[in-house]
């Protein structure tokens, strides 16, 4: 059981009210949230310090223009922020931020983390092809009934970690029948409770895991299985991979959008993996042909080795792919199995080291003998 702040307003207005309260009472100096940019549904992350500017804030809008974990890590890479900021972000964004902090790419200090039980987000493409407005109308209805909203990102539909673990406050959305009348904000930590002292609304006691969230988790697990099975149908091995990545342009957009890929200079963009005329020559002599640009399979598998163990399944990679390769499905499938191997859930615990950067003396002892 944890304390819940109930605001007698629709969930979107209720959250805005809370943000306004935090800013006006000067408990925080700024709010990091999604903000509407135009009437067509374009949103972008913004940092707001004046309460007046909050009027276009849409903290729960079902779009993810960029994984916020990446932005927050950018804010705090050199130095932790020195004044409190409230950041509203999704479960996977928060997990990505924590994964980045583990890799010394940021700091949690002075952040008030507000997250929500997530109903998923729509692909960015739905904005440009005009289907977004139609889809978003049934989004809240699906969330209320703990259903998987149709047309959301495939990874969102298969995401079972929609309840954030590390947030100070969690806005309850999934399975809340009275979304339009009441806004429930779970205060998970002492920090969350302190910041809401004097906030509008009343405090009650409730459980975040309900029948509805379990129902949605089960549905999403089924969907995940379906997604992986479908991928397995394409077959296995190098032949299948060549087919899957056949259209890859080597734009490396997936790695640029990925919150876990933080390297300033990616190994695969560096001189290390530069293909010189001489190497082309050798390969042509041996094989009689080469693909140009070369090394796409090497890039994707290489990237899996580097980050799949920390993959948070946010789906940004598939979303930015210009040739519609299901990158996120492959990465979440591989990531899932690697995470199980090391018994690791990315972003769950900030103290737990990243598996690829640590070891235990007494493990896998049968290997090498």
């Amino acid at each position, binding site marked *: 059981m944890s304390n819940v702040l109930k605001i007698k307003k629709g969930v979107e207005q209720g959250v805005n009210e809370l943000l306004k309260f935090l800013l006006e009472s000067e408990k925080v100096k700024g709010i990091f949230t999604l903000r509407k940019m135009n009437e067509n549904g374009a949103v972008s992350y913004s940092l707001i310090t004046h309460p007046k500017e909050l009027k276009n804030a849409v903290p729960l809008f079902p779009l993810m223009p960029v994984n916020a974990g990446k932005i927050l890590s950018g804010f705090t890479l050199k130095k932790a922020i020195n004044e409190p900021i409230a950041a509203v972000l999704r479960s996977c964004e928060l997990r990505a931020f924590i994964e980045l902090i583990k890799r010394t790419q940021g700091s949690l200090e002075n952040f008030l983390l507000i997250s929500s039980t997530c109903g998923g987000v729509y692909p960015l493409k739905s904005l440009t092809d005009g289907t977004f407005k139609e889809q978003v109308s049934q989004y809240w209805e699906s969330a209320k009934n703990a259903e998987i909203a149709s047309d959301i990102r495939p990874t969102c539909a298969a995401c079972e970690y929609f309840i954030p673990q590390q947030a100070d406050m969690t806005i309850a959305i999934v399975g809340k029948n009275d979304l339009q009348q009441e806004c429930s904000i779970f205060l998970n930590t002492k920090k969350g409770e302190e910041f809401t002292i004097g906030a509008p609304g009343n405090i009650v006691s409730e459980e975040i895991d309900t029948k509805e969230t379990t129902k949605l988790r089960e549905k999403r697990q089924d969907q995940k299985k379906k997604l992986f099975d479908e991928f397995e149908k394409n*077959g*296995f*091995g*190098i*032949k*299948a*991979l*060549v087919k899957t990545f056949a259209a890859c342009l080597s734009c490396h957009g997936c790695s640029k959008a990925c919150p876990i890929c933080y390297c300033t200079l990616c*190994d695969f963009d560096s001189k290390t993996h530069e293909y010189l005329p001489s190497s082309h020559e050798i390969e042509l002599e*041996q*094989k*009689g*042909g*080469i*693909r140009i640009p*070369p*090394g*796409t*399979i*090497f890039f994707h*598998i*290489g990237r*899996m*080795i580097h980050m*799949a*163990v920390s993959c948070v399944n946010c789906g940004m990679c598939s979303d930015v792919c210009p040739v519609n390769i299901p990158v996120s499905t492959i990465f979440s*499938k*591989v990531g899932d*199995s*690697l995470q199980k*191997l090391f018994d690791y859930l990315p972003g769950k615990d900030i103290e737990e080291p990243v*598996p*690829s950067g*640590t*070891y*235990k*003396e007494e*493990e*896998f*002892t049968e*290997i*090498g*003998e």
Partner: protein
Amino acid sequence: MNDEYTPKIIGFLCNWCAYTGADLAGVSRIQITPSLRIIRVMCSGRIDPLFVLKGLLKGADGVMMMGCHPGDCHYQKGNYSARRRYVLLQKLFEDLGFESERIGLWWVSASEGPRYAQVSSEFSEEIKKLGPNPVREEIFI
């Protein structure tokens, strides 16, 4: 010369143990498989999984990694990291449907010349049974 298929295997050998072990095997005049191409590294911890991947994608039939026994690493803990990376790589290969039998990790100390000869020829035999790397058929990758 007979036409029997000899696989091409790349071996990453730690300078402080397996590489010296290989030397010892040679000095002791033990028969060693000709299919192994040795690359010396300063520690098994230096073996980037990308080295292994690149080797296999460029058409090598197998990749061997050899390092010091656990606890004996010249740099204290390099072989433990190597072991984790190897496990990760093997799991990844299984998930992607690559033949994970094509990679292997062994602990071979500097005094284990015969062991070096034995594991390398055993691995070579196994790869011979598996046949050439299917990646070779894929030209445009």
